[in-house]
């Protein structure tokens, strides 16, 4: 009998909770101009109250700090503004290293400009979450992300940033390119004078392979890369452009972010994603001192809805949201193979080890930066 009563009580409590939720969701905003936005929210942001929309509209603007995935971000922002015309979005884009340092410097100086920040290093985002640098906000689509693709209530992954080895197909034969199907292949002396690397300081996607290589293959691996006398390129975008033009033949730590737009434009490039792969998450979070906290929450919600995420993913990178099919045209190419497994690594340790990795890098490759 007590068991039965307890079930009845739990059932009633559940119904009550459901009714409360439904009540919150159905409390439409008073301004009829927000009807369209509200309808979309009800459909794709279950449980998000109308008060968030009203507060966001009152703040009316938002600043997003984003990376070199310009096309993806701008497409998503454009659609967000169509869905929520009461919020205008300002944008700042730079390489991760520069973007991150700008945000940190602004925060230290007490000049809070950024509402939304993105970073290619999950370790950095986790660190900021632990130091109260990020706003704790659990999105309505939280359940769509695995533990590795989020830190509950702090950041959520926009993509898995796949690190690859890229080459110019006009200059590297198919036979030679076979050597590039494994990480060990990049140290082959055949690439001496033909290869380039992206400086590890450029951001998480550029840095993570150096950390993983050092951790898994030891300093000798870096020394072998150094022996190739690779050209050091400061960031992913110019490195990809140099590859497309044929100024370099092989890019040893390539990011799909730089390569995909060039491939779409017909550049003679290909890349391999060795298995096991290296794929750090690119996360998005709300700054703790965001000057427009409600607009930021609304944007954070939108970014991870089916629509917002889909728009971003189509141009931005491999999906990190559960059940999303990779919509990028490259995913349909026969030569394109996503790794079946990834080299495990601890993002926190990767962040903490940055100085020692850079020191080893300088010893093996060069003093630049």
């Amino acid at each position, binding site marked *: 009998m007590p068991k039965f009563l307890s079930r009845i009580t739990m059932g009633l409590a559940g119904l009550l909770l459901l009714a409360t939720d439904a009540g919150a969701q159905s409390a439409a905003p008073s301004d009829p101009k927000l009807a369209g936005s509200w309808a979309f929210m009800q459909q794709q942001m279950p449980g998000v109250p109308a008060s968030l929309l009203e507060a966001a509209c009152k703040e009316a603007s938002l600043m997003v700090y984003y990376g070199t995935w310009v096309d993806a971000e701008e497409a998503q922002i454009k659609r967000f503004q169509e869905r929520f015309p009461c919020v205008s979005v300002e*944008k700042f884009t730079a390489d*991760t*290293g*520069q973007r*991150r*340092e*700008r945000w*940190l*410097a602004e925060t*230290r*100086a*007490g000049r809070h400009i950024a509402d939304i920040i993105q970073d290619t290093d999950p370790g950095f985002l986790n660190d900021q979450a632990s130091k109260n640098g990020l706003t704790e906000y659990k999105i309505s689509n939280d359940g769509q992300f695995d533990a590795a693709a989020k830190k509950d209530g702090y950041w959520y992954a926009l993509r898995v940033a796949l690190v690859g080895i890229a080459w110019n197909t*006009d200059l590297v034969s198919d036979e030679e390119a076979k050597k590039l199907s494994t990480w060990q292949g990049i140290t082959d002396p055949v690439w001496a004078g033909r290869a*380039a690397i992206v*400086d590890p*300081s*450029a*951001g998480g996607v550029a*840095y993570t392979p150096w950390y993983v290589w050092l951790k898994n293959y030891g300093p000798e691996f870096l020394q072998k890369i150094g022996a190739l006398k690779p*050209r*050091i*390129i*400061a960031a992913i975008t110019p490195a990809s*452009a*140099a590859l*497309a*033009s*044929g*100024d*370099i*033949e092989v890019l040893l730590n390539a990011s799909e972010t730089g390569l995909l737009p*060039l491939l779409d*434009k*017909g*550049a003679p490039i290909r890349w391999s994603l060795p298995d096991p792969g290296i794929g750090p998450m690119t996360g998005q979070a709300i700054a703790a001192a965001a000057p427009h906290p409600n607009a930021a929450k609304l944007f954070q919600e939108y970014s991870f809805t089916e629509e917002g995420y889909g728009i971003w993913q189509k141009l931005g990178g491999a999906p990190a949201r559960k059940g999303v099919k990779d919509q990028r045209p490259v995913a349909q190419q026969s030569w394109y193979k996503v790794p079946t497994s990834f080299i495990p690594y601890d993002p926190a340790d990767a962040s903490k080890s*940055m*100085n020692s990795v*850079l020191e080893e890098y300088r010893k093996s490759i*060069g*003093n*630049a*930066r």
Partner: protein
Amino acid sequence: MSVQSMSEPSSSAPLLPRVASFLFVAFLLVVVITPVAYVFYGSFRTDSPGAPDAGFTLANWQTAYLSPVYLDALWNTVVLGVVVAALSLVIGGALAWIVARTDTPGRNTFALLIIVPLMISNLITTLAWIALAAPNAGFINAYVRMFTGIRTIFDIYSFSGIVTVHVLHYAAFAFLALFAALRSIDASLEEASYMLGVGPLRTSIRMTLPLIAPTIATTFLVIFIFVAENFSVPTLLGTPVDFQTLPSMIFFNMAVTPTQPTIAAASGTVLLWIALIGTVLQRRMTSRANRYVTVTGKGSRHRLARLGIWRYFTCAFVVLYLLLAVGLPYIALVLGSLMNFLTPRLRPEVFTLDNYRTFFVGDNFAPVLNSLGLSICGGLGLTIIYVLLSFVIGRVRSRWAFAAD
């Protein structure tokens, strides 16, 4: 402003100009001294301003002044400055002499065209030269390779590449200074030399050159300082080959993970010494130059050197300079703007008008408007400030005016 007014400030000026000069010095203190003082303060801190638990340290100065990496960067900065200043003077001087003092055909048109490189940001020139002379895919290297088999005739990612881009820019600056000096020399002196039977070359070396020597020296120093403090050219062209100058080190210390803003501040003080020493030397030379009363600032008619057949060579020299400093970079830029991606392998499918279509749409056009706004406001604001500054320094005899100077 005379040397006398600099060395003998008096307090006998009327009250209003003295107050104006005081206010001006106060303004200069805020906009010049405050940031410099803040840099010094930051250079002695263990962490950037605003960081909790930061204390005082000498470690940043130790790193910036004594560590091999920074000493290398300082050495690179000085060598680059000296080489660029010297070459710019040689080329700019030759251009100035050709245009001002010879019967080279087209010299009046050249006088206008030679200063065009000064109107182009050297960041843009650098990007254009990367397109032209990147070792494997630069247009020049690719086509020379196609016709001669030589893999790379000129690598822009090198010390000589950095020097080339700088010299093409600053030769125009040297031209401007030396052209004005050559035009301002009292023509009767040279006439007298010719009448005494001295030839044009000997007259140039024995008389004209000493007369413009102060201009040469000050131009050298100004170019040296500009180059020592330039960041975009060595950063873009030097980083791939591990060649760093102080400004590029400072940029990376400030902008790239993990940042070292306090070391950047200490390195900034090294640059400050370079600029200060250069400025003091330049002022001394300018003061001495005032004694050369034959360089009057008044134009006078000069006898042009008749070069005969050689005038076509001098013409070709100017055309070559214009081709390298303006023609080729602009051709590369225009060509690049019409391509999907930069490549020397020209095929119909790489050409597009999309870059222009997107450039004029939405946010993409905003930088153009920003640049225009900045140019107009900055130009206007600076002109007003410098007119006032010149007035205070030149017309007001007070200690404040002396300080402002």
